[in-house]
């Protein structure tokens, strides 16, 4: 009974951290640029496919350290793509209506899907978990896959690094000030265009990192971009758009609700996440933690 309860709770946490890994970059870009980046899922997908290709340069499964290096390489590569996209697209979206941003980012999503299909083909692919994380951890009757624990750890680590950066470092505080009042920040001599670019590159790098870390979590296909993005949007809305702490909290809350709901009310699969989002927004339309923090 206790083992069951623990298993469901841990499954909820795995889901939560997987979604948080995807949502963190999304909420960062929105918090600073106020652009809802529909293409974010597409770059998570590109990160995952890059991980697949890098792993297949060798014999397949790699060790944990190599896997972490590989995920960082995905982050750097996708971050570089973010730099190009910022220069080519996002720079032009700052002073236009939101609807243009939605159309532009949706178009980038379609382009990323097309690029993946052209490069890697339409067939399903899969990535091995890192060596040493393919098995499970046993505690009495409780079983937890080692890779699932790794995802939880990765989600917490990303949250701590992001939180530290935004709360404790000068560059993070400058970024928050630009998010709150770009005009005043520019009057104070802050290069807000540089800050915008840093936010976009960091957001895309987080997408690449999420793709790399989550590549062994599920199948890879050119439609993968849409798999996480709906839940990621739900998490950043419930958390308070642009708020990293809110997204982290919302991911855990929604993950646990979805996990227990799915197991104890099996006739309604996948419904609890959406019900929870609707109910929370009804009572706190601004999200659990509003504003950029």
């Amino acid at each position: 009974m206790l083992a069951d309860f623990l298993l469901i709770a841990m499954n909820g946490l795995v889901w939560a951290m997987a979604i948080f890994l995807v949502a963190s970059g999304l909420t960062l870009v929105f918090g600073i640029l106020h652009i809802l980046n529909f293409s974010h899922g597409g770059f998570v997908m590109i990160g995952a496919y890059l991980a697949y290709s890098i792993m297949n340069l060798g014999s397949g499964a790699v060790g944990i350290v190599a896997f972490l290096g590989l995920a960082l390489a995905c982050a750097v590569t996708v971050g570089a793509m973010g730099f190009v996209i910022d220069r080519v697209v996002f720079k032009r979206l700052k002073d236009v209506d939101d609807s243009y941003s939605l159309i532009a980012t949706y178009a980038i999503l379609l382009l990323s899907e097309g690029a993946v299909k052209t490069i890697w083909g339409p067939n399903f692919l899969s990535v091995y978990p890192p060596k040493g994380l393919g098995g499970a951890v046993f505690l009495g009757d409780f079983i937890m896959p080692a890779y699932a624990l790794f995802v939880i750890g990765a989600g917490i680590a990303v949250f701590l690094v992001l939180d530290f950066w935004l709360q404790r470092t000068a560059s993070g505080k400058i970024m928050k000030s630009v998010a709150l009042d770009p005009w005043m920040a520019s009057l104070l001599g802050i290069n807000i265009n540089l800050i915008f670019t840093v936010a976009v590159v960091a957001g895309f790098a987080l997408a690449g990192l999420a793709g790399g870390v989550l590549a062994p979590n599920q199948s890879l296909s050119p439609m993968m971009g849409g798999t996480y993005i709906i839940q990621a949007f739900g998490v950043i809305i419930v958390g308070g758009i642009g708020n990293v702490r809110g997204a982290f909290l919302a991911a855990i809350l929604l993950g646990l609700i979805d996990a227990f709901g799915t197991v104890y009310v099996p006739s309604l699969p996948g419904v609890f996440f959406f019900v929870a989002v609707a109910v929370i927004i009804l009572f706190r339309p601004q999200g659990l933690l509003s504003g950029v923090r």
Partner: protein
Amino acid sequence: MVQISRRKVLHLMGAGVATSALSAPMYARAQSAPYKMGFVSALSGPAEALGRPMLFGAQLAVDEINAAGGINGRSIELHVRDTKAKPDTGTVAARELIGEGCNMLLGCVSSSVALAINGILKQENATLITAAAHSLRLTHEDFNRHYFRVTDNPYMRQRAQAKLMAELYPDVTSWGGLIPDHEYGRSTWEAYRHGLNTFYPELAGVQPTISDPILTQYGGSDYRNYIASALRDPAVGFFSSLYGGDAISLFQQAKPYGFFQKKAPFMDSANEFIAARAMKQELPEMWVGSHWYFGAFKGNEISDRLYNKYQEETGNKHPDGFVSEGHATVMAYAGALAKAPEGSTEEVISALEGLTFETATGSRTLRAEDHQAIKPVIIYRLRGADNDAGFEIMEYRVIDGAETIEDATPGQPVNW
């Protein structure tokens, strides 16, 4: 009194001569013009990986027939449209093809698209032969004379799978299921459950204990909660009808829990080699349902040719059954056109009813009453392996479809 002048008579005569002169070649042209067939299936989107091999098979059949001189001296022209596996897009694509003169449609990966196109066939005076859409409604509740299916259906396949389990694992008498929460998932489970209840008492002499199925989300990224539910289930044997990417995600996530050791045997409804190609050495051992397995039909000329050609052009040594099913749709039309050379819809329908034709799995017959093909069900046992492909076929079974097919009740639900 109507007066006709000499000039007018000459004009009329001239017009008559001109008409005769023009209509003769037109008639001759109609007799030699290609038969137009419309391929309508998913060529992009989530089901592209299924629709493309289907198109390969259909196109190969067309090329072979044309190279051999066509049918009745007329070649076949294959027009192609993408449904994106969406019913509305599929309906538009079907109407476009019919507008181009293709009254013989074929293809369809998903049941929802086939059901949508099925609804317009009578009005548009066209026929559709599907190569994969499995909904039982197509040959039962929603039956109409314009629709045919050359492949098996859940009643045939899942009951054949259940029969095989009863034969091979008479001691595994408790069964559970992981099924997607939509029409296909429910109909596959209903048929499998029915098969277990029929064949375990008959072949193993015991009544099986069957748990309620675990319904899963379609297109999800995380299946661990469903896996947790399945692990809590006392059932030993498990059936799954999750498909494509969803199935692969489930298998990947279930493996570390020791799921496939605890829940064995594991029967997969229809993933052919899709999951095996993706997971390779990581593929857990399972039985898998298929439309066609080339290794089971060695010596069948069509099967051998199809396999060699597919392997040559794609480099893929394990083609999925969608290749043979695409091929079979064209072969069915070709057989009908040999009997109905004008190719009018009504004639083609009459010719297809009860037609027996050759395919990569041997002869198939389209049952006259409900237009369901009687064909073998193929099931193989797969597992990851340390070889070039990354997996191996441990054994396979070919079960005669006639043994597990349902009673024909067109217009009525399946008589369970």
